[in-house]
């Protein structure tokens, strides 16, 4: 039974994290701007997050240490503090973007005023997290997020040219708008390689008391969960390309994305899309806020964990509550969640090496990992992605500036 639950953790983490507001915005936008030309980036992102997650999961299962425990121990206090501060800043931006997304989805479903829905969304998240057990949280948001599969149906129904889609999988550089193309590559990879996902996943593994015998489950989780998320990202890009590109529509609202399901599938399509977005982005908010609390608590050595209950881990509980309230404050200033999303994704990519490199070191460290350290495949992939991540991190801000945040 716990193996099935273990898989549900993976699915929640994947759907919530892999199809969060960043993926929604960037994948549909990429399709609406470059058609199918960027399809090849998605599998690269999927394999990347699988590699990163699997390593973190394995570190958790073997050493009993979550990401920020391991980072602080391995690279020391100063570097660890740098990694923590940058992670928490990006985390809060992401959380605000996700919460904003939840409020928008609620508005499109109910017609109630946006500002009230922001407060409602935060209160609902606070109550749901406080009251619901981890298992039920995973179930509700994981399976609710599966409504996103409507975009796969929509993608097929829109009847794209499958040869063009196929050609999109061959890596190539666009003819024109090279800078914008580069910006989208960064954005798509950044949206795929969400670090909060990895922190949540590894801490969740410790909460579930993984041991070395769970390594296989860890791998299955990572591959199936993120594979599913990648498949949904492909569907989103196809929808963007098949529906919006030819009509000259550049998606700038969450509602536009939902329209992508309404046009081919009618009211049912739209409702499933909105519900799917609500649960996917809502689930992502939960992953994100917990990840922020996990990181701080682990770095400081506090008691932490959902399973300890608020009484057992008071500072941990206060942290996620405060983070939600701060996020609410940010969204209430009126900043557009879609714009905030783009900034959050780009900055998270810049900060990514700060946590990836220590984890790669720990995963190779025999003192931590015993005989479960990185094998040859894990290291080849790990190093390959290290190169990718560093290149992406270095080019992110220049490209953002040069393309004026994707407006060109």
């Amino acid at each position, binding site marked *: 039974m716990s193996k099935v639950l273990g898989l549900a953790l993976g699915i929640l983490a994947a759907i919530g994290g892999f199809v969060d507001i960043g993926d929604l915005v960037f994948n549909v936008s990429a399709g609406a701007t470059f058609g199918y030309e960027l399809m090849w980036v998605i599998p690269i992102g999927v394999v990347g997050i699988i590699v990163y997650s699997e390593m973190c999961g394995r570190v958790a299962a073997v050493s009993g240490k979550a990401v920020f425990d391991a980072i602080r121990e391995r690279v020391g206090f100063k570097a660890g503090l740098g990694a923590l501060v*940058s992670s928490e800043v990006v985390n809060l931006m992401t959380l605000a973007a996700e919460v904003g997304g939840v409020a928008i989805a609620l*508005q*499109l*479903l*109910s*017609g109630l005023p946006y500002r009230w829905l922001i407060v409602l969304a935060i209160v609902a998240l606070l109550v749901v997290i406080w009251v619901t057990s981890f298992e039920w949280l995973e179930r509700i948001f994981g399976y609710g997020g599966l409504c996103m599969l409507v975009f796969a149906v929509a993608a097929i129904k829109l009847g794209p040219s499958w040869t063009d889609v196929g050609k999109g999988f061959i890596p190539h550089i666009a003819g024109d708008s090279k800078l914008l193309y580069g910006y989208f590559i960064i954005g798509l990879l950044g949206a795929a390689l969400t670090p909060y996902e990895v922190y949540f996943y590894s801490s969740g593994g410790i909460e579930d008391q993984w041991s070395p015998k769970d390594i296989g489950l860890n791998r299955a989780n990572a591959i199936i969960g993120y594979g599913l998320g990648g498949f949904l990202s492909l569907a989103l890009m196809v929808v963007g390309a098949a529906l919006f590109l*030819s*009509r*000259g*529509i*550049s*998606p*700038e*609202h969450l*509602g*536009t994305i*939902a*329209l992508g399901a*309404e*046009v081919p599938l*009618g*009211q049912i399509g*739209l*409702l499933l899309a*909105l519900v799917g977005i609500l649960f996917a982005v809502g689930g992502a908010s939960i992953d994100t806020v917990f990840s922020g609390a996990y990181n701080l608590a682990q770095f400081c050595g506090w008691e932490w964990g959902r399973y300890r209950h608020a009484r057992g881990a008071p500072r941990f509980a206060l942290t996620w509550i405060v983070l939600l309230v701060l996020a609410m404050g940010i969204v209430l200033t009126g900043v557009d969640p879609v714009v905030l999303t783009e*900034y959050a994704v*780009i*900055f998270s990519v*810049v*900060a990514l090496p700060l946590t990836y490199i220590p984890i790669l070191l720990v995963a190779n460290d025999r003192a931590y990992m015993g005989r479960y350290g990185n094998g040859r495949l894990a290291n080849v992939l790990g190093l390959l992605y290290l190169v990718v991540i560093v290149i992406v991190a270095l080019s992110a*801000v220049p490209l*953002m*500036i040069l393309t*004026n*945040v994707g*407006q*060109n």
Partner: protein
Amino acid sequence: MCAGVCGVFVVAGCNGGTVDRHALTNDSSTLDSIACEGALLAHDVARGRSPVFFAREQAEELRIQSSNFADALSRRKTIPAIKDQVRQKAKYAATLAATLQQLHNHPSSRSVAASVERKLKKLGNCS
């Protein structure tokens, strides 16, 4: 990283300056995009495929966006050569906003939606 963060905010903020040809082209295509998306939404409403809340709220989102453009383009400084074009675009944006307002006010009327769709398609040169 700190320098990068500050740099981005400074540069991104610079966009709110004088309207030049580049900005005008960008704003034009955004306005066309709004028009065509509005047309797509109206198309669905005309066929009864759109729930009322969604149609109303999404039309409002698009209206607010075009209304903001109308304000900005009618007030911002422009380089002299393109001043007329910019003010023309401001009028376009205002018409767009007014048309979308109709859809927002009648989110379940198929006839209003059909007429809105026609107007928007023409405005935005949509396919």
